[in-house]
């Protein structure tokens, strides 16, 4: 007789993905029937990804938390429309992007700064060498700079580079989530990467000249 743990160890990555999908499907079905504990499990499974994506889109933790709350309420309200066999994660990504866009517009905070404005702004901190990122203070400072770098992008560029480079989704999936053509999304990704690179280089140069 084969031991259950041995069976588990023998599971391939594909089996694990299939199991994960089954679990998600069962949670969705239970939540659709009004099981709030199942819905809680759905939140637990997606909360980190949603709040992180929201931070990347909005640039601060308070807004990211508010956005995550809105995302899960929208998920709850639209649960009956969900087909568990379709791409649930992609659907949550799409809701998150939409919620962040709405939130940014409502708060009128998504006032994009140009690269020049950002770099010329006196509050630009000195660059920190990457091998020092153990320190949480330095880490937070770097995050602040990243948030500023992302703030120089257009809303669409920001969504495209976040999904492609930070979430690691394939280009076609990014296009599907954003409701754009793959060509448009590639152009947005290319432009966003160039802007981030220029921002970083200028920031490093400014830090070096301040020393």
């Amino acid at each position, binding site marked *: 007789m084969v031991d259950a743990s041995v069976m588990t160890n023998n599971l391939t990555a594909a089996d694990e993905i299939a199991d994960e999908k089954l679990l998600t499907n069962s949670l969705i079905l239970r939540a659709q029937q009004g099981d709030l504990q199942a819905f809680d499990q759905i939140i637990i499974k997606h909360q980190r990804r949603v709040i*992180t994506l929201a931070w*990347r889109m909005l640039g601060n933790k308070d807004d990211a938390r508010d956005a995550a709350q809105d995302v899960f309420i929208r998920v709850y309200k639209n649960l009956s429309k969900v087909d568990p066999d379709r791409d649930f994660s992609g659907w949550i990504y799409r809701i998150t992007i939409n919620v962040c866009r709405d939130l940014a517009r409502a708060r009128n905070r998504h006032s994009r700064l140009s690269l020049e404005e950002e770099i010329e702004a006196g509050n630009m901190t000195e660059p920190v060498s990457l091998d020092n990122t153990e320190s949480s203070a330095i880490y937070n400072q770097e995050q602040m700079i990243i948030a500023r770098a992302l703030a120089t992008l257009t809303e669409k560029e920001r969504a495209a580079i976040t999904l492609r480079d930070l979430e690691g989704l394939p280009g076609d999936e990014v296009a599907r989530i954003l409701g754009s053509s793959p060509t448009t999304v590639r152009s947005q990704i*290319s432009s966003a990467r160039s802007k981030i690179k220029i921002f970083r280089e200028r920031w490093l140069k400014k830090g070096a000249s301040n020393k």
Partner: protein
Amino acid sequence: MNCPDVEKLIPLYSGDDLDPKQTRIVEQHLDSCENCRNQARGFEQSALWLKSNASPEFDDATFLQLRQAVRLEIAQIQTKPGFGDWIFSLWPHRPAPALSAAAIIILIAALSLIIFRSSTDKNSNLITVVSDPAINRQEKPSPTDALQAPPKAALRNPKKTIARKEERLAINQIGSSAPTDITGPKSEEKTETTSSNNMLRIELQTADPNIRIIWFTPKKETQNDSK
């Protein structure tokens, strides 16, 4: 391919977003061009910098707060007032659901009664129309008038009630066109005879208050003449 053409492709090349053919072309150029190689390296470093710093830490308390807030909002969504709740929101204390159900039944019963009454009203109107014009003129309401309920009916369909009134008025005029003075009796109880110019009106009240016998007859002036 020259440098400007390749430079346009490097951002996508650095993220592995070019098709195999374009990738090969860029790689061939990079082998021989130091400037473009530096460009490509710059994109790689930039991507690494972005990835390693764009994942802020969120503690467990944040996630707990998030789930609590979501649960609270869902609870609010679930208790949003429905029709029954809306009715009873008019009362200061919310009655038990069983009471709500009972009240809805009473409401339905009341509605059907009103509809039933309205159809009865139409019948009573018919009685009024065929009744004697003299009775309609009486200041005291006759029993048939009393049956004709009205303010409710008037509220439901004021136009209809006005039409009925006009109908009655027309009949009254026909009645008065008769050569009779219909100043009419002030009291219903007693059997009465009223005289007019040349017609005699005789009313008899039966035991049934709804039935009154009225007839007109020419005055027997000839009798006086003969006396």
